[in-house]
């Protein structure tokens, strides 16, 4: 069964490349700040503090919070990129993370060459790579651009290719940062259908976004992060009701299509 459990995860970023002494002043000056010290008394930024949650098949978790609240860091930690400074993470299921549209792509290589590299990364053999190639080509719909270096693409095309590559290999756990919103409306619709199909087949989605409309539409659970801590965790509309200013929340309920109801 696909699942993902974060237990008490904390992440400290060491501040190596800065002046230690003036930093120490900042550390002790800011009582409520996120600067701290690790066990060896080196200055750190406390990016995440004691994050715990469990996701099961079919969960679509949204992450919301201001800039610098730790959303991307949490996605990286859940991807297994950052080894946590504290706590642990365990999961069952193949994970794909889409943190940055051009991530894992070589901009100088063509789209097709990038797809092949992705296939090799997934440990595929020749026939499977060929299948991946045609699947991505069909889904991304970028036409002849597939044989041009990625640096010649528009940002929307990069998003299409990256999304197609990430989802074509049927990940069981999909982590996405908000840039997916850079696609046009038609592509968004297609992307949403694909993610829905994925989640229908008992998989997990984690999406970090600033757009409450997207969160309300895509997710069935929402975590509000602030200063690296979980402020609220619950149904999207319940959390959004706390997170958004009242008039914006009303607006969200009004424009949502199909109409949303705060249950």
């Amino acid at each position: 069964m696909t699942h993902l459990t974060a237990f008490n995860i904390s992440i400290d970023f060491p501040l190596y490349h800065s002046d230690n002494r003036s930093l120490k002043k900042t550390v002790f000056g800011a009582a409520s700040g996120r600067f701290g010290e690790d066990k060896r008394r080196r200055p750190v930024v406390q990016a995440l503090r004691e994050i715990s949650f469990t996701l099961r098949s079919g969960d679509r978790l949204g992450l919301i919070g201001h800039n610098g609240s730790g959303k991307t860091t949490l996605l990286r930690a859940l991807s297994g990129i950052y080894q946590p400074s504290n706590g642990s993470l365990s999961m069952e299921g193949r994970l794909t993370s889409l943190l940055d549209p051009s991530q894992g792509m070589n901009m100088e290589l063509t789209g097709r060459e990038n797809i092949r590299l992705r296939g090799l990364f997934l440990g595929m053999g020749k026939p499977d790579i060929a299948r991946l190639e045609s699947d991505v080509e069909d889904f991304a719909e970028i036409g002849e651009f597939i044989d041009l270096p990625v640096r010649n693409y528009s940002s929307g095309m990069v998003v299409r290719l990256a999304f197609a590559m990430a989802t074509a290999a049927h990940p069981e756990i999909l982590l996405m940062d908000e840039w997916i919103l850079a696609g046009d409306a038609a592509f968004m619709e297609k992307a949403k259908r694909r993610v829905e199909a994925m989640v229908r087949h008992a998989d997990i989605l984690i999406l970090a976004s600033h757009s409450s409309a997207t969160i309300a539409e895509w997710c069935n659970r929402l975590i509000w992060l602030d200063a690296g801590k979980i402020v609220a965790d619950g149904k999207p509309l319940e959390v959004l009701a706390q997170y958004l200013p009242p008039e914006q929340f009303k607006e969200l309920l009004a424009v949502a299509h199909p109409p949303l109801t705060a249950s």
Partner: protein
Amino acid sequence: MTDFTGTDRAIRAMQRQPHFTTSADRGWAQRFRLAAQDLREGFILWPLSWALAVADIRLRYRGSTLGPFWLTLSTGVMIGSMGFLYADLFHTDIHKYLPYLAVSIILWNFLSSLVSDACACFTGAEGLIKGTRMPLTVHALRSVFRDMIVFGHNIIVIVLVFVFLGVHVTPYVLLAVPGLLLWLVNGFALAFLFGAFCARFRDVPQIILSLMQIAFFVTPVIWNANILSTHPGALTLIRLNPFYYVMEIVRAPLLGTDLSFSMVAKALIVTAVLVLVSAFAFARTRGRLAYWM
């Protein structure tokens, strides 16, 4: 797990284990276990490392007519011009000196590219390291593979020089192969050691580059170790130089000169020390590297 089709199941079966756990640092036992796991997963992905290395070389020469054979040509031109100049300066016979110089320079270039690429093997892959969970071994292998490809193109120059000057070649040459394999082991170990060190301390690559410049002059590359036989003091310099032993185990078979047992033993000791230090360095830094990017 619910699958839609049989092909899906086939893809899933081929992919990596879906189970993954990580936790805060718990000391050396956990560090070595995770490092070993990284190596295992990385070696399984060697076709990816190879494809990345080939792409690196191809991109460097994309659009040029000769492509990577520019490597062969530029090395050939350099050795040709240096050979005649230095043969004259050192008052040596060009028929003896040119094969020595060709072999030495090309081997040295390989060795120094293993060292300098080791420095950049992780910082150069920042996008991949911060973007996906990928074994770090993939990046180390990629840099070794890339240097191997370059070396492969340069071997042509050695072959041409040997053919033109009619150098007598015996099966003894084949002893260079185990020597080169030992180099690859060294290069791979160095990638972890220097790669991590250079990612943490950004001044280190520059320091290593300048040290390699000095090493080039104090190691018998363009000059022969024999000319020091009258300078006992200078001989100590060679005796303390690990590059000399490492060079000699490949160069001697290629040039048909004697290779003493102690030379081989010393090269093996250098490798053993390097592998051991690198293993500790990798176990220690593996979990921290993403933070240093």
